[in-house]
């Protein structure tokens, strides 16, 4: 077991495939940066693989202060046991206080194995993370600056906040696409640290025979809650509000074509006639007029909440609840209310 280390860094596991980083890793670097700034500690990224050193600068540009590179030809293809060995070795050596993984198929395979090996807690599939003081309801002891790990569970019907007092590091997998991808800053400085981890033949339990991978898609179809932003959001920076609201209620992020065409978010998030058709339990449309081509993709949703500054926007004709107002004011209020309710 690893004792709590309040000076420990905030870490991100840098998942990569064939020499390119997974998007969620860059989203996590931004989030780790935010958390680390509150805690006043550095951000570290762990980058295992083969010929992956060039990726380190990208991690630094997205917020990492230190990149721990573990270069080994035996790490070329992901395998649970050797990758877990790398993480366990470095976690034991540096004792980070937080370790974040993408809740990708790979991350959800690897992270619990690491947690089991070092006997740490592990929160699955988080959609929001915050730093806060927490009082243990039993002992009344106040724990300073813990990681609040917020996640949907029970098939998406409830949102749980999970904290971990003493089984450190605090580890979580985080859903793809809920943390905003912040623009990189190429002038950031960081340190690249080469690490060696013994990977002997006996750890390689699997032999890859064949592999077939399709282009990346966003999984809107299975989301129970979708928060979608439109042209009315106004800018890429403000589109962060859509991500934050989605994170706070455990939803996925959608968009209208106007938002996609303005470059606020990728085309794979588009909902409508030429995008994805969805029917979640809850659809929140913010700054979306409700053009027929957009409605075609979402009007079957069980409950629709529309936020629009224009009381005559057509979206209100299909919404179950309408909020007439500026989304830049309404959404922060919703996030605040949601967070307070959980306390």
């Amino acid at each position, binding site marked *: 077991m690893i004792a709590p280390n309040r000076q420990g860094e905030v870490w991100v596991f840098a998942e990569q495939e064939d020499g390119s980083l997974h998007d969620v890793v860059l989203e996590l670097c931004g989030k780790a940066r935010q958390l680390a700034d509150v805690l006043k500690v550095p951000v570290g990224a762990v980058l295992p693989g083969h010929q992956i050193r060039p990726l380190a600068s990208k991690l630094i540009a997205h917020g990492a202060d230190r990149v721990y590179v573990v270069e080994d030809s035996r790490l070329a293809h992901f395998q*649970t*046991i050797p990758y*877990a060995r790398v993480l366990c070795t470095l976690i034991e050596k540096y004792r980070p206080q937080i370790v974040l993984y993408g809740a*990708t*198929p*790979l991350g*959800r*395979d*690897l*992270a*619990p*194995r690491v*947690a*089991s*090996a070092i*006997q*740490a*807690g*592990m929160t*699955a*599939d988080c959609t929001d993370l915050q730093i806060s003081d927490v009082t243990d309801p039993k002992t009344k002891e106040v724990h300073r600056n813990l990681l609040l790990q917020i996640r*949907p*569970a*029970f*098939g998406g*019907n*409830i*949102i749980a906040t999970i904290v971990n007092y003493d*089984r450190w590091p605090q580890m979580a997998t985080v859903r793809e696409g809920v943390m905003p991808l912040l623009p990189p800053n190429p002038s950031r400085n960081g340190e690249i640290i080469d690490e060696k981890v013994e990977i002997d033949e006996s750890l390689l*339990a*699997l*032999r*890859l*025979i*064949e*592999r*077939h*991978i*399709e*282009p*990346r*898609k966003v999984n809107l179809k299975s989301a129970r809650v979708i928060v979608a932003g439109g042209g009315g959001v106004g800018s890429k920076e403000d589109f962060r509000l859509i991500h934050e609201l989605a994170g706070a209620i455990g939803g996925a992020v959608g968009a209208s074509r106007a938002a996609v065409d303005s470059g606020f978010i990728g085309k794979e998030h588009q909902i409508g006639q030429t995008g994805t058709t969805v029917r979640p339990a809850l659809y929140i449309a913010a700054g979306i007029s409700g053009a027929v081509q957009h409605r075609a993709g979402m009007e079957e949703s069980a409950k629709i909440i529309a936020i629009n500054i224009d009381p005559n926007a057509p979206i209100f004709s299909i919404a179950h609840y309408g909020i007439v107002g500026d989304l830049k004011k309404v959404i922060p209020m919703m996030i605040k209310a949601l967070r307070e*309710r959980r306390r």
Partner: protein
Amino acid sequence: MPYDIVVCVKQVPDTANITAEAMKEDGTVNRAALPAIFNPEDLNALEAALEIRDRYGGTVTAISMGPPKAAEVLRDCLYRGADRVILITDRRAAASDTLATSYILAQTIRTIGRFDIVLCGRQAIDGDTAQVGPQIAEKLGIPQVTYLEKIDCIENGTARVRRNVGRGWEVVEVKLPVLFTVIGGANQPRPPAAKKVMRYKRARIPAEIEAEVKASLGQVSDEELLDAVERRKQELARQGLL
């Protein structure tokens, strides 16, 4: 070659069909208002276990950790063809996180003794973590293959399987013993067999026997009750239903 297979099954509240009545004022779920079901992907894990046994021979042991009521899913395992079932029930395990759950299940598997293949569902529909499978594998010190879609073949102690990797699939070979987590859609779970239902519907765990005997006897002394419970246990044990 025959294989000894262990499959982990969990009884879960039916979270896919939650009604407004099942939600409490404070946003938490009233578990009592929800029907308890066989975790859907655990049915796929059970089916995968039965298919391996039917093809290569061996045994299928189903294990579950939960309250006495979880005996229901284990009876269901017997109806569908499991050879043996084990329930771990203890109040102290009630608020386990995945670390504790996987520890208890791994220790149980060790106690059973020989195993070649351990199967879990990918994910339980209440906790939704998908962590228990990989954590059992780590505790048993064996490799894991998650999101199993298909078992091609098992030969010379090596399994060749296809797993889902989110945006596609891969075929891998892995040496036994190994733990697989199985995804929904990997197979079509067989229905309960009528003959087995007739045979095993009276199968009971000790806690159920006590409750049933108590209910049937009404007011009696503790001694009489213990006696009756013991007689009932022996009777069921003789029929192989304890």
